[in-house]
């Protein structure tokens, strides 16, 4: 103890060294770590600590360092060479210390260049034509190579690169082709500047390229549809042959939606004439005489009673029926126009007041007596029976209840408990009549006083509530914390 006390500061001699693994500065790989001393004791461990540029800043410049101490003389040759290679000036400063290793790692993936998979090739200038020769197989050198044959072989396998030339719009493609052939239309554009020509050409290419690359198929579809539509419109609006149905429709439309005069004329002028085809069809049956018996008969009946009537009769009958139908239809059409049935809706009287319940329950209004909707509740109930300003109060003592010492009786009461009622009743009995009379013959001052009293109460109530809230805020906070984490999220205490 005495010995220890004698030493400086009463501390034990610190004969240890602490080293920590740090990632090497500027290293891409985080696993590339070196030991660095992190304490300042005198104890030295030879050969443990790695000399590092990181360390250089911490230790004395006079200490023995590695190669990288710029303070000690010129830089070593290899360092200088590297600096020069990088294009940095050779002025004795070690610029390599500022360099960072670039090694693609997961973290540094964003900074590395990855060529896109959907890269589009550069657009060819117009005087160059590209051919895809990937399918050409270079045969091993035979003795004699017929040039012509070789050329044919090569030509057969190579396919022109179509992708760049393909255009969505035929006009643009045509233009491009023309320009391709005529080599830029140099005769016309002699007067224009070079860059203007190039710019114009470039625009055309770009448009084509854009449509090409992004939405080639889509673009095709859209444009082709548009073309079709245009073509369609240009042609005859009624490409198909007029049918029986079309004529019928037209006539019907005319009749129903035409002017009333026209309508009348058509009707009065003559019979509604069926189209010729219809008449032709019907004529087959028209000739056959079908007798309609008293009783209704279906064709099945005829089948069963073969003996009674022949098949001809069957057909005759059905034809007759059809004829009759036509006649009826004509008659109906002609007759109904003359006889106009006017439907007048009776105006509902006030006596016939139906409510939903009556309609739905199908009882009459006599059975159901829907009540009148009245204004809900009495405002008077909200106010206490005993006002603070009342002079005729029986009890002069204002009773304070609860933890917060509030004059409970003077607060607006939602539910009057039995206790309060008992207290309030004698006062009530006294004040009831007075109150009622007061409501009738209330003067301005009384009204004002009443309203002021109400306001005062409300203010007091609000203050009390706020106080109460503040009193237990910390408790509610704690409770909320617990409730929020453990309980359902719908609990809200604050």
């Amino acid at each position, binding site marked *: 103890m005495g010995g220890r006390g004698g030493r400086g500061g009463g501390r034990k001699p610190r004969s240890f060294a*602490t080293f920590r693994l740090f990632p090497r500065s500027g290293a891409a790989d985080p696993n590339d770590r070196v030991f660095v001393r992190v304490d300042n004791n005198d104890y030295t*461990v030879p050969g443990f600590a790695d000399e590092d540029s990181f360390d250089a800043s911490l230790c004395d410049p006079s200490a023995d360092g590695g190669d990288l101490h710029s303070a000690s003389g010129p830089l070593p040759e290899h360092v200088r060479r590297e600096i020069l290679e990088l294009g940095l000036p050779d002025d004795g400063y070690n610029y390599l210390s500022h360099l960072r290793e670039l090694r693609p790692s997961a973290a540094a993936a964003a900074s590395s260049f990855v060529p896109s998979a959907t890269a589009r090739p550069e657009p060819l200038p117009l005087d160059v034509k590209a051919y895809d020769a990937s399918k050409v197989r270079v045969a091993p050198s035979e003795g004699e190579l017929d040039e012509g044959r070789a050329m044919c072989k090569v030509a057969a396998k190579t396919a022109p690169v179509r992708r760049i030339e393909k255009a969505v719009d035929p006009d643009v493609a045509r233009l491009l082709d023309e320009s391709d052939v005529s080599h830029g239309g140099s005769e016309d554009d002699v007067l224009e500047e070079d860059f203007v020509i190039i710019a114009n050409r470039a625009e055309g290419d770009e448009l084509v390229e854009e449509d090409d690359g992004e939405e080639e198929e889509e673009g095709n579809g859209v444009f082709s549809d548009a073309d079709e539509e245009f073509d369609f419109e240009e042609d005859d609006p009624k490409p198909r042959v007029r049918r029986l149905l079309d004529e019928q429709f037209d006539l019907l439309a005319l009749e129903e939606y035409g002017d009333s005069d026209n309508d009348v004329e058509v009707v009065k002028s003559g019979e509604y004439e069926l189209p010729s085809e219809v008449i032709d069809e019907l004529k087959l049956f028209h000739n056959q005489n079908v007798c309609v018996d008293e009783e209704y008969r279906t064709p099945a009946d005829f089948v069963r009673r073969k003996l009674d009537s022949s098949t001809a009769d069957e057909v005759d009958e059905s034809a007759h029926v059809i004829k009759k139908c036509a006649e009826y239809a004509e008659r109906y059409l002609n007759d109904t126009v003359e006889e106009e049935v006017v439907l007048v809706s009776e105006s509902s009287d006030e006596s016939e007041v139906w409510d939903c319940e009556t309609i739905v329950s199908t009882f009459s209004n006599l059975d159901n007596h829907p009540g009148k909707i009245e204004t809900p509740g009495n405002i008077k109930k909200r106010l206490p029976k005993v006002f603070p300003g009342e002079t005729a109060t029986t009890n002069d003592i204002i009773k304070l209840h609860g933890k917060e010492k509030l004059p409970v009786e003077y607060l607006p009461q939602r539910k009057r408990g039995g206790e309060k009622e008992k207290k309030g009743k004698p006062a009530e009995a006294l004040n009831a009549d007075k109150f009622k009379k007061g409501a009738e013959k209330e003067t301005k001052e009384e009204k004002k006083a009443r309203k002021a009293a109400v306001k005062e109460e409300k203010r007091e109530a609000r203050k009390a509530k706020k106080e109460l809230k503040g009193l237990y805020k910390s408790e509610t906070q704690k409770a909320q*914390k617990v409730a929020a*984490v453990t309980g359902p999220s719908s609990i*809200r205490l604050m």
Partner: protein
Amino acid sequence: MAAVYGGLKGKLGVEDAPELQLNRIRITLSSKNVKNLEKVCADLVKGAKEKQLRVKGPVRIPTKVLHITTRKSPCGEGTNTWDRFEFRIHKRVIDLISSPDVVKQITSITIEPGVEVEVTIADV
């Protein structure tokens, strides 16, 4: 103990040119990740045992848990729900008695990302 070691030194003599200067070495490993940490510990101990060093097995210091309780909501609106985040730091201590070079070797081999290594060297 020192005597024993001194004796050993004497016996080995010329064969062991590099000094077998033994120190007490304490390796403190800390990490957020238990799995990696345990792996590194195991490797270290195994390595040390292979080299016939005296190892005092990984002492597990109680994990430190840092709690962060924050409101879930970025604004003050809504039910007051809270997030409870925690951040666990595990620590292991391994004691060896060996020369520093050996330790350096061992430590450089067993490298795992996210594990912090601190080596304290003292006299025997």
